[in-house]
């Protein structure tokens, strides 16, 4: 039940409770208390609070508390009337493009856009001049002034709905415009309209109070809250409550409408939905281990945990590997296998509330899991670790020119002055084959093509002297010819600088072309590690074989369906007890489903985590 959902929230309960109270007072206030609000007590003119008069009296000795209560009806009725005028006019104007045809619609939309630019109060004053001073004129003025805003909202909503299939279908079926509007369009925009109307009623109430307060709204002897404030303001030195109490009433009633609107929005799913976050649980103990000698990067039992909706998600579940100086290592796997998380964790770019743990994570002699001097670590990582991200379209800051974005690295870590750093940036852009680098350096990222941006990103990594380049799907978003250019550039850069490469990709053929060694990841773990050259022939894990088989080559029979890996990847929060791949594995048995296979190395240093992997690679030769 939606009503129940509104009431279940504290905001909804408070809002609707207040609203019910306000409406009750508005309905019964004048009947119950009108006598007490108008009786003149000449013994207590402008008196302060007393037992007889809770918040005092006005200049005729009338009881202010009851006057505030009685004023509720007029204040609310006028606010609702003005809101109704706004809504009706707004809906008519907003739906006009649909009803009156394109040309008339365009004129109306244009007029609404011009009117929306003027603040509401100015429109109110304008209409107040025309309709004259008084309650009716003010209601018309406030109502008309609110119409452009509603028209804009309604126009947007109607335009959104009228592009949907069922509206188009109704139109093609010959249903009349008005019928389409009332039967198909309005019911579908009703929810946001009601929410906005509720909130608008709150703000109309406030502007009405303002108008009466200025003396342009309700005139004596009638009174609403604004009028009472106006009367009270003159005596604020002697009797502040006379001005403050009606003000408080205005705020409470305004809040009642606004909170109800917020709660309705929440129940209708228009606002954001609160998410339940869980604690990550206890950190598991880590034991310090020694890094692999001669490695630029050595990682032991890397674990990355993210907070989930119900329970923590173990995105990376114990990954151990090393990269030797100058070596190119590829990581392959499906989306959600944890390969990008591994790359980010290695680059020390994972932030709270995600948690990174490892026995060690040593890059170029420095263990990044151990807190160190932030200044020197920044300098170390900033100059010797280059990172190329997946999407070159979003990875450059749109607000800065390309040159300064590169130069920043040298200014921050190499102590270069602005001019020298910019010269180096131009030089690096030239090194990554960007033509006219001086001119290009002065351009914004949006003036670069995708391939050029990715080259500029590599150039950014070359501002220092990288010992490792982490490339996370660097070619995924590029087209095929640009892909090979970028890969060739990476190879060239490695040749020139001697940097090692960690290449994350879901593309098996890219990895076999570029890398020396391949890590295959599945469900946050490494399931196989072997030389890239052997990937197609000597793979032992059923998942690796399936990945390789899924890549079409020149001999693939195009008349048959392309090979796919059956089943779906595991849902990261729900990792099974046994082998994570068992559910999709043709070889799996009960043992596989019960016991998680360890990652074991053979004599050649190749590793595999599978109960069914044959000890000798020769026997598992695949005929794909």
């Amino acid at each position, binding site marked *: 039940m939606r009503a129940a959902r509104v009431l279940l929230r504290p905001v909804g309960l408070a809002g609707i409770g207040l609203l019910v109270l306000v409406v009750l007072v508005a309905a019964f206030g004048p009947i119950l208390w009108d006598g007490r609000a108008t009786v003149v007590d000449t013994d207590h003119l402008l008196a302060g609070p007393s037992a007889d008069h809770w918040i005092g009296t006005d200049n005729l000795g009338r009881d202010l508390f009851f006057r505030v209560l009685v004023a509720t009806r007029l204040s609310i009725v006028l606010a609702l009337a003005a809101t109704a005028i706004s809504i009706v006019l707004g809906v008519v104007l907003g739906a006009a493009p649909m009803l009156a045809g394109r040309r008339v619609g365009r004129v109306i939309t244009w007029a609404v856009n011009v009117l929306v630019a003027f603040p509401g109060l100015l429109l109110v004053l304008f209409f107040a001049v025309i309709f004259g001073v008084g309650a009716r004129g003010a209601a018309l003025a406030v109502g008309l002034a609110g119409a452009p805003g509603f028209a804009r909202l309604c126009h947007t909503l109607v335009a959104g709905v009228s592009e949907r299939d069922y509206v188009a279908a109704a139109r093609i079926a010959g249903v009349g415009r008005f019928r389409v509007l009332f039967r198909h369009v309005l019911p579908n925009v009703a929810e946001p309209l009601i929410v906005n109307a509720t909130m608008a009623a709150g703000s109309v109430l406030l502007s009405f109070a303002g108008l009466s307060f200025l003396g342009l709204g309700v005139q004596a002897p009638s009174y609403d809250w604004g009028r009472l404030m106006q009367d009270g303001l003159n005596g*604020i030195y002697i009797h502040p409550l006379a001005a403050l109490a009606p*003000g408080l009433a205005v705020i409470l009633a305004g809040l009642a409408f606004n909170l109800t609107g917020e709660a309705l929005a929440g129940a209708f799913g228009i606002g954001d939905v609160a998410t339940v976050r869980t604690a990550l649980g206890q950190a598991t103990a880590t034991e310090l281990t020694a890094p692999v000698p001669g490695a630029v990067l050595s990682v032991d039992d890397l674990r990355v945990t993210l907070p989930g909706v119900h329970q923590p998600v173990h995105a990376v579940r114990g990954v151990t590997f090393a990269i030797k100086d100058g070596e190119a290592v590829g990581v392959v796997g499906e989306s959600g296998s944890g390969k990008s998380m591994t790359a980010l964790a290695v680059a020390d770019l994972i932030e709270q509330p995600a948690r990174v743990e490892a026995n060690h994570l040593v890059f170029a002699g420095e263990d990044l899991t151990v807190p160190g001097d932030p200044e020197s670590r920044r300098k170390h990582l*900033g100059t010797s670790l280059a990172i190329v*991200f997946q999407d070159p379209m979003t990875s450059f*800051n749109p607000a800065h020119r390309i040159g300064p974005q590169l130069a920043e690295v040298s200014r921050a870590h190499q102590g270069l002055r602005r001019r020298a750093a910019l010269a180096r940036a131009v030089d690096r852009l030239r090194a990554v084959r960007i033509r006219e680098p001086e001119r290009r350096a002065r351009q914004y990222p949006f003036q670069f093509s995708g391939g050029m941006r990715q080259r500029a990103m590599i150039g950014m990594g070359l501002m220092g002297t990288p010992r490792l380049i982490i490339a996370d799907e660097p070619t995924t978003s590029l087209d095929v010819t640009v892909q090979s250019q970028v890969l060739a550039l990476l190879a060239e850069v490695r040749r020139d600088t001697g940097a090692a490469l960690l290449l994350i990709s879901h593309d098996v053929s890219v990895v076999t072309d570029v890398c020396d060694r391949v890590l295959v990841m599945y469900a946050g773990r490494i399931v196989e590690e072997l030389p890239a050259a052997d990937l197609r022939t000597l793979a032992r894990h059923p998942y690796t074989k399936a990945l390789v088989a899924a890549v079409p080559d020149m001999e693939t029979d195009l008349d048959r369906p392309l090979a796919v890996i059956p089943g779906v990847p595991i849902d990261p929060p729900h990792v099974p007890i046994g082998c994570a791949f068992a559910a999709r594995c043709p070889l799996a048995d009960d043992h596989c489903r019960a016991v998680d296979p360890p990652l074991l190395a053979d004599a050649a240093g190749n590793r595999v985590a599978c109960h069914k992997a044959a000890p000798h690679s020769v026997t598992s030769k695949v005929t794909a």
Partner: protein
Amino acid sequence: MPTAVPPVRGLRIPGAHPWLRFALRRTGRLLVSLWVLVTASFLMIHLVPGDPVRAALGLTAPADLVLARKRELGLLDPLWRQYADFLTGLFHGEMGVSISSRLPVAETIAQRLPATAALAVSAFLLSMLVAVPVGVVMAVLTRRGRRRRAELAFTGTSVVLGAIPDFLLAVGLVYLLAVQTNLFPVAGRDGLGSYVLPVLALAIGPAAVLSRIVRVEMLAVLEADYIRTARAKRLTALRIHLAHALPNAVTATLTLGGLLLSSLVAGTVLVENVFAWPGLGSSIVSSIVAKDYPLVQGTVLVYGVGVLLINTVVDVALALLDPRSTIGEG
């Protein structure tokens, strides 16, 4: 999608053309809006039901006086003639003569405008100066679900402060800081102290709303890929937040800031009346009550032009800050 500029040597600055287009388009929109405003304020007096001059002078005024005043206002001429006179008058800086005070409207406005402008500008500056740093700091402190309690306190406070209309705040401030403690004068414009309460009353609401917007914008920007790139460059947190995140968060803030500024201009009407501030706001209300139409016409025109100018300045500032979105459109 913007593609690379064709690499034609010798043909420099391919951006000049779009900038010119932008200038033309924006000027066109300003002129059309101005025309709508001028025409609307001209028509205002004709839309008043009944006889406006009779209404202004009262039922007891002699008929020949009403006729003379009508002739003086040009209301006896054909409509097109009145419109043409109105436009030519505006070009010469004339806006007619007030019915009640018999003074030129332009003079009255020139006398009262500075007080209103000073109020609106200082309130706008104050709300920006408070909102941007507060929003940025709150975004950095509470992002990714950190410090839930600070976030709730901030959101709650800003929602409540933003929901209270400026004239109610004004009354509350008068009560607290003028009546109760005598810290600041209750009304009038006399020295710097007299600015404090009206400026606060005008600025608190917008500052609360704006700081919430700045925070939300900052939160979105902090999750962007280019912020990760900036972190990958191992810049200091200060540089990441101020040089990389803030410029991108500020564009949306500026758009809304402009809207707030124009509603601030209108908000001065109410606040001026609370503080008996000798600006346009008090004069427009009294002239509406007195049915002094020429004065109302002139004042509405000045407020409207102020709003239009603010909107234009905001658009130009946006174009300079984020050339892609504004220049690329249309």
